[in-house]
């Protein structure tokens, strides 16, 4: 099983370290980035491509700016809140996958995180079991390596651009390679394309 990666964003050092230490003790889970503010959240999400984001909602600016948006759009299923809001106001937090309460015991936090990452309990979790590329992914990778854009690939394969992007994310997750040049090398080394075919 691939390791599931977490970004933890929480201003309080004590709370953050506590959450991080619990996550790192869960088999197959690992915190890849700790943040005490959301200043660079978008670039961190892009560069780490985390499976889950644990965040204190107080860090999200009140104004609906692009950051806020980004988090909601890309990750709403994968965002876990850290909150001290009393239960009757928890409606506010309904957009989060799970809520860790500041009064939770270690065991409760552990269980909540486990249920979020456990594929049996959460069949919708989009998560990589095998790192073998599927035939479709290989086809897409070949086109990426030849230098085609997502849009061009979508047209050739009669897919939506969105589907191509999803496939590309999965390819990157499976291989551990983010850049186009890197994917090209992989494609050549694995005889998916020839060196001369690279644009």
């Amino acid at each position, binding site marked *: 099983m691939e390791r599931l990666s977490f970004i933890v964003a929480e201003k309080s050092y004590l709370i953050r370290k506590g959450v991080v230490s619990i996550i790192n003790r869960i088999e197959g889970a690992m915190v890849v980035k700790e943040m005490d503010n959301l200043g660079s959240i978008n670039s961190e999400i892009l560069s780490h491509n985390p499976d889950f984001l644990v965040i204190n909602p107080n860090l999200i600016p009140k104004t609906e700016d692009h950051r806020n948006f980004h988090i909601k759009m890309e990750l709403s299923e994968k965002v876990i809140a850290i909150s001290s809001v009393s239960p009757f106001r928890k409606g506010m937090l309904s957009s989060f996958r799970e809520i860790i309460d500041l009064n939770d015991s270690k065991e409760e936090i552990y269980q909540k995180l486990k249920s979020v990452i456990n594929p049996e309990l959460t069949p919708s979790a989009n998560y990589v079991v095998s790192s073998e590329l599927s035939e479709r992914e290989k086809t897409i990778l070949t086109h990426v390596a030849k230098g085609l854009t997502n849009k061009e690939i979508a047209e050739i394969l009669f897919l939506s651009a969105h589907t191509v992007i999803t496939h590309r994310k999965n390819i990157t997750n499976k291989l*551990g*390679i*983010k*850049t186009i040049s*890197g994917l090209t*090398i992989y494609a050549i*080394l694995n005889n998916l394309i020839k060196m001369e075919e690279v644009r």
Partner: protein
Amino acid sequence: MNITHDMKMADVIHLNYSLLPVITRFNIHLGFGDKSVGEVCEDFGVNLDFFIEITNSFIDDDYIPQKDLNSFPVKLIVDYLHKTHTYYLEEKLPELLSMISGLSEIFDNPEPILLIKNFFSEYQQELQSHIEREENIVHPYVLEIEDSFNQNSKDSKLVEKIKTYSINDFAKEHDNVEEKLYDLKNIIIKYLPPCKDKALCNRFLTELFRLEKDLNAHAELEDKVLIPKVAKMEELLLEKYTKI
């Protein structure tokens, strides 16, 4: 254990030898006998507090700054960043390049190593232009901000500049130049065909890891210290001169 001013500089190296390139960047030479960190810094004209903050945060991700990093002049930070850039361009990249040419001799099939070579030269160009931009545009700009801040005279050209391109615009575009490095590591670890000289492969990989760690610490200094500090100065400058 934290590095302190009364520790022996020799012990600092024993504590964590990964600091060697950092110490070199401060123009400090080895052979410091039993001198303390404070004494060595004085000998070489290095700002002691700055040295202590930089080295501690380099070896310990959870280091708690003892001095407010904002208290250091922009000039001092820029100077250190510049030396770090020089280290990447003049030491690290050539070193990695020569390892790659060494690698090309030990594969039966030249193709994989040719790919690595091309990939690395792309990376090299990326890093170079990242650094050039900082040295040619960002650093002169932040120094100008600090100058104007200290001089207290109104500079309407600078006010205009802040309005058209502020440090936060730079911050938004500032990437961490590590994606390709990350890929390169994975390609070597996971996908390269077996090579005859394992030791050379390992050395190359080790150096990539070191470079990555160094780049991360460097970007941290840019993102978490330099940028907020300059942003604050810009804000105060604008406040002051738009009021008058």
